[in-house]
C-alpha cells in the first residue's frame, strides 16, 4: 500500500498551526491592546513628582504665600525586620498601644478601596507599598527620629511641601488646601491619594494654575516591586514644573492694618483701586491666621473650633453676607434722578417726617446738602419722582414702568448680579424689579407708596460689602468700573480677559461732580455725618449709613473714596451692630485711607480708640 498521500495530512497540520499562531500573534500584538495594558500594570510604575504650588505676592511684590518643606514618616511593611514596637514607640514619643492602633488604622483605612464595578469595598493594603505612618512633620520633629530610622528597616522619611503664610492675614482671600477625595481623584487624574487641593478663595479659583505641572517618571519594576530602571531610558518622562508666581492686587500691609482695626468687632472692610478694579484689602472680622489651616494635622486640630465659633470667622462676610445698604444708597438715587431729569442739583425738598423718620437737621435746599444731612424725607421725594414719572395715567402701571427703569440703572451700577470674577463664594445681593413685587403683591397691585423703603436703601434691597465698595469705585470713576478682582497676573499672563472690560453705567459723567461735592461736605462741612473720616492733606469723599437691624442694634456703614480728584482708593467699612455709621465706620475708613495713601497714621488717638473698641 502506498501511504505517500499521508504526508499532505502532516504538512497541512503544520500549515494550520502556523497559520493559527500567526493570526493569534497578530491579534495579540497588533489589534488587541489589552495585553499591552496588562504589561503596563505589571511592570511599569508611574511615579509622579508633585511640584510645589506657585507662590503668591502682594501688589508691592511682598511674598505672602510660600511653601514650606515638611516630612512624612513612611513605612513599607514588607521591608520591616525584627520590628521592636516598644523602641519605635519610644523614638516617636508615642505609647505602644498608639503605634499598634496606627498600624491597624493604616491596614484598614489607608488602603481601603471601593470597586465601582462590583460595589465591593476591599482593603487595597499591600505590604510592599509605602504608606505615611505620620504625616506632615516639621524638620525639628523629624530630625530626632530620622537619625535613628536605620535601626527600623521599612521606615523612611519623605519630603512634601505645604503652604506657609508670611502674614497672619487674608485667610478668607487665600482659602486653604485639603486632601482630595476619591471622587475628585477619579474626576481629575492629576491627583493621587494624599494630594492637596484648593478648597476656597484664590487657591480654589486658580487651582489649575497654582498646582503647576506634575513630573512623571516611568519606571520598570520587578516582580518584587523594586525599581529596575527608567522605562525606555526616560523617553516618556516629564519634568515637574512649579506653579507660576501669582501677583495680587492686595496690599498686605493695608490688609493687616484693617484686620487689626477690626479686632473685637464683627464686620468687614473692602477697599478697591477704582482705576483698575483690583481689590486692595478684603477684611472679614473676626479673622483668623491662615497658618491654622495648613496640613491635615492643623486642620483636624483647628477647623472644628473655627467652625463652632459663634462669631463665624470662617464666614467670608465681604463676599457672602448681604445687607441692606442703608443711606449710602442715596448716592445712587441721586444719580438716577439727575440722569432721568426728575431733579436738578438745586432741587430742594422739606424734611417732612410724616412718611419717613429723620434725625434733626435743617431742610436741605439742594442736592449736596441732602447728601450731607442724609435726609430721609428728601430721598423719599426723589425716589418717588423716579418711580412715579407719570408715564402712565394708571398709578400702578406708572410705578411698574418707573421701577423697571430704576432697576436697569441699578444693574448698570453692578448690583443685583454675581460678578464674573476670581472670587469664590460670592452672593448676588438683591435689587427688586416689578416681577419681584408682582410676586409679593400681585400684578399692578403695588405703587411707590408700597415700596417706599427702597428710597433709603432699606427693605428688599440687599448688597454685599464688595458691591458697596464697587459702587464707591464707580462713583469715584464718574460712571464706570472694572469688575473687582484679586489677581493682577499669573506667571506671564496678565489679568483675566473679563477684568479688562470696562463697565459703563447709564449715568452721564457730568452728573457726578455734584455727588462728589455732596460726599465732600459729608466729611468736611460742619453738620456732615462723616466728619470722623476727615484727613488733613487728603480730601476724602464719603457717605455714612446706618442700617436698621431691628430688634438688634443698627449696622454702621461708611462708604468713601479718596483723594477727591484722581481717586486712588474706594473703601467701604461695615461694622455689625455698632450703631450710627459716623461713629464707628467713618473713623476706620479714614484711618485706612491714610494708611494706604501715606503709609502711616497721624491721628494716633483716634487709632487707639478704634483699636480698643470691642463692639460685640
Amino acid at each position: 500500500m502506498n501511504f505517500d498521500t499521508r504526508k499532505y495530512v502532516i504538512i497541512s497540520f503544520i500549515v494550520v498551526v502556523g497559520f493559527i499562531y500567526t493570526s493569534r500573534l497578530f491579534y495579540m500584538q497588533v489589534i488587541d491592546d489589552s495585553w499591552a495594558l496588562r504589561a503596563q500594570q505589571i511592570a511599569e510604575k508611574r511615579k509622579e513628582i508633585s511640584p510645589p504650588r506657585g507662590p503668591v505676592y502682594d501688589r508691592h511684590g511682598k511674598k505672602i504665600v510660600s511653601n514650606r518643606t515638611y516630612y512624612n514618616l513612611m513605612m513599607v511593611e514588607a521591608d520591616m525586620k525584627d520590628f521592636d514596637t516598644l523602641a519605635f514607640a519610644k523614638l516617636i514619643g508615642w505609647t505602644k498601644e498608639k503605634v499598634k492602633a496606627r498600624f491597624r488604622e493604616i491596614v484598614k483605612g489607608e488602603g481601603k478601596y471601593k470597586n465601582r464595578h462590583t460595589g465591593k469595598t476591599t482593603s487595597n493594603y499591600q505590604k510592599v507599598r509605602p504608606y505615611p505612618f505620620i504625616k506632615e512633620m516639621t524638620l525639628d520633629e523629624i530630625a530626632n527620629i530620622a537619625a535613628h530610622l536605620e535601626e527600623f528597616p521599612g521606615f523612611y522619611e519623605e519630603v512634601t511641601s505645604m503652604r506657609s503664610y508670611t502674614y497672619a492675614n487674608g485667610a478668607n482671600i487665600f482659602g486653604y488646601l485639603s486632601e482630595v477625595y476619591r471622587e475628585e481623584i477619579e474626576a481629575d487624574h492629576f491627583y493621587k491619594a494624599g494630594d492637596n487641593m484648593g478648597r476656597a478663595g484664590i487657591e480654589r479659583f486658580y487651582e489649575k494654575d497654582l498646582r503647576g505641572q506634575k513630573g512623571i517618571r516611568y519606571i520598570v519594576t520587578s516582580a518584587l516591586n523594586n525599581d529596575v530602571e527608567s522605562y525606555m531610558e526616560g523617553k516618556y518622562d516629564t519634568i515637574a514644573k512649579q506653579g507660576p508666581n501669582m501677583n495680587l492686587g492686595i496690599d498686605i500691609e493695608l490688609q493687616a492694618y484693617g484686620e487689626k482695626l477690626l479686632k473685637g468687632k464683627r464686620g468687614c472692610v473692602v477697599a478697591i483701586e477704582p482705576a483698575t478694579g483690583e481689590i486692595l484689602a478684603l477684611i472679614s472680622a473676626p479673622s483668623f491666621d491662615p497658618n491654622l489651616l495648613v496640613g491635615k494635622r492643623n486642620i483636624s486640630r483647628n477647623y472644628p473650633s473655627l467652625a463652632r465659633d459663634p462669631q463665624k470667622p470662617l464666614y467670608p462676610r465681604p463676599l457672602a453676607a448681604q445687607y441692606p445698604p442703608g443711606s449710602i444708597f442715596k448716592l445712587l438715587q441721586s444719580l438716577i434722578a439727575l440722569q432721568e431729569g426728575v431733579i436738578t442739583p438745586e432741587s430742594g425738598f422739606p424734611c417732612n417726617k410724616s412718611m419717613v423718620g429723620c434725625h434733626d437737621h435743617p431742610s436741605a435746599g439742594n442736592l449736596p446738602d441732602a447728601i450731607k444731612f442724609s435726609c430721609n424725607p428728601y430721598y423719599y421725594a426723589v425716589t418717588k419722582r423716579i418711580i412715579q414719572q407719570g408715564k402712565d395715567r394708571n398709578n400702578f402701571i406708572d410705578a411698574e414702568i418707573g421701577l423697571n427703569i430704576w432697576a436697569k440703572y441699578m444693574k448698570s451700577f453692578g448690583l443685583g448680579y454675581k460678578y464674573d470674577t476670581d472670587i469664590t463664594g460670592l452672593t448676588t445681593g438683591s435689587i427688586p424689579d416689578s416681577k419681584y413685587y408682582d410676586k409679593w403683591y400681585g400684578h399692578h397691585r403695588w405703587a411707590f407708596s408700597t415700596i417706599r423703603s427702597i428710597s433709603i436703601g432699606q427693605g428688599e434691597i440687599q448688597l454685599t460689602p464688595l458691591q458697596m465698595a464697587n459702587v464707591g469705585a464707580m462713583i469715584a470713576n464718574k460712571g464706570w468700573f472694572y469688575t473687582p478682582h484679586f489677581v493682577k497676573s499669573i506667571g506671564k499672563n496678565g489679568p483675566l480677559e473679563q477684568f479688562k472690560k470696562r463697565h459703563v453705567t447709564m449715568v452721564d459723567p457730568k452728573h457726578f461732580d455734584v455727588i462728589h461735592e455732596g460726599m465732600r461736605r459729608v466729611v468736611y462741612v460742619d453738620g456732615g455725618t462723616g466728619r470722623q473720616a476727615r484727613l488733613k492733606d487728603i480730601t476724602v469723599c464719603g457717605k455714612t449709613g446706618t442700617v436698621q437691624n431691628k430688634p438688634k442694634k443698627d449696622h454702621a456703614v461708611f462708604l468713601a473714596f479718596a483723594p477727591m480728584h484722581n481717586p486712588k482708593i474706594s473703601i467701604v467699612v461695615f461694622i455689625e451692630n455698632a450703631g450710627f455709621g459716623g461713629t464707628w465706620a467713618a473713623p476706620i475708613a479714614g484711618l485706612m485711607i491714610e494708611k494706604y495713601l501715606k503709609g502711616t497714621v497721624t491721628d494716633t488717638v483716634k487709632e487707639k480708640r478704634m483699636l480698643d473698641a470691642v463692639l460685640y
Partner: protein
Amino acid sequence: MRKGEKITTNIDWPLFSVYIILMLMGLATVYSTAYNVDSPNLFDYSQKYGKQVVWLLISLFLGLLVLLIDADIYRKFATPIYIFTLILLVIVLFMPAKNGARAWLGIGTLGIQPAEFAKIGTSLLLARYISSVNIKLQNLQTVLMANVIILIPMVLILLQPDAGTFVVFTSFLFVMYREGITYDPLVLKFVNLIPGIKFKQTWVGSHFIPIMFAVVFLCISTLLVSNNIITFDFMPNVKIPGFAGVVTSLILLALLSLFFLRYIGSKRDRKNALIIVIIGFTLCITIASSVNFLFQGMASHQKDRIELFLGLREDPDGEDYNRNRAMAAVGSGRFLGKGYNKASVSSVESNHVPESETDFIFCPFAEEWGFLGTFILVCLYMFMLFRIIMIAERQRSRFVRVYAYTVAMILFYHFAVNIGMDIGFAPVIGIPLPFFSYGGSSMMSFSMFMFILLKLDSQRSYILQ
C-alpha cells in the same frame, strides 16, 4: 566517509543555514534577557549567555564529529543507543530531585537531561524497527511493538516527572501515521460491537492519529479561550465571547481549504476532498460548541479543576500567574517591538515572566521585536519543518525517512507547545524552544538530531536501507 569526499559534500545548506540563524537569534535573545550590567561581555562564563556560547560551541563540535563518522552506525547501533539512553533514564531516577523533578544527571551546575537524549535513541530505534524487512504497520502486533518502543521511555520520563517531554514523545505517533500505521483493527473491534454494524474498514481508524490530535487541539483551544472576552479599541462597548474566535478561525480555515481545493488534480479527488472539508468543518463546529457549552455549564469548582489541569492556573490562588505574565509580555511588543535589550516585562532582572531565558524565551523575543519579529520567527520554523519533510521524502532509505520525520515532528511539537503556551493556546508545559532556549542539554540534543539528519541525508545516494 568515502574517499575523496569533503565533509561538506551533499550537506543540505538551506537547512543548515536556518539552524545556524535560529541558534544565533536565540543567543542574542538570551544575552538581552539575562543581560547583566556588571559583566556585559558575551563570553563571560559566569553569565548565562557565556554558558550558552559554550553550549553552542560544544554542539557545533559534536556536529562536526557526527559529520566525520559514517552514517551507517546509527542504523547498526540503534538498539544499543536506545538501551543506553534508557539506562540513563533509569539512573536519573536515583538522583536528587531538583525543582521537584529528577531530571538532571551531573555534578553541580554542569548536568545533562537524559530525557533530551532519549528522544534521539527512541527515534533511531523506531526508525530502525519500522524500516526492518517484513514489517507491516498494518499488523496489530507491529503496531503494539512500535508503541512499546515509545512507551518505555515515556513511562520512565513520567516517573521523573517531566510532563513536557512526556507529551513530546507522542509526536512519534505522527511518524508512524506517515508510515502507514492504522488503528483500524482496534477501532473496528469496538465499532463492530454495536449490533447491526459490520464495517470492514473505517476512515476514522486509519486516520486515527491526526483526527485524535485535531480533536484534542480543538478541545484544548476552545477551553483555553472559552472564558476570554474579546474587545476592540474602536468599539469599547462590544464584548465578544472568546468562543467566537474559535468559530471565526474554523470558518476562515474552511474557506482557505475550499480555495486550495482547485489545485487538486482529478475531479473525483476534488469531490472527495470537498466532502471531507464539509464533514470536517461540521464536526469541528459541533465538537467546539459542545466543549464550550459543557464548560460554560459547569460549576465553578469544576471549571477550576479543568483550568488547573490545563495549566491555565498554576495554583488556585495564583490566578494563572505564568501565562498571564507571558501573554502580557508578548502582547506588549505591539507591531515593531520595544527594541533590542528593552524588554521590560520579561527581562530576568524584572522577573515578571518566570524562566524567561529558558522555557519562556519567546516572551522577551516577542517583546523586543514585536509582531514583525514573531512573524519572521514563525516563518523560519515553518521553513525548517518543510525543509526537513522535503528531505525526508527524497530519501530512498526508509530508515532515514522515518528518522527525518521524527526530527520534524519533535521540532514541530516543541515549536507548537512552547509558543502556544505564550499565546494562550497550549497548557503551560515546560519544554524548550529548539535552538533558542538557554540550556545545554536541549541545545546539544537538538543539534545532534540535526547533524545526524544532515549526515544521513548527505549519504542518501548510497544508503538504501
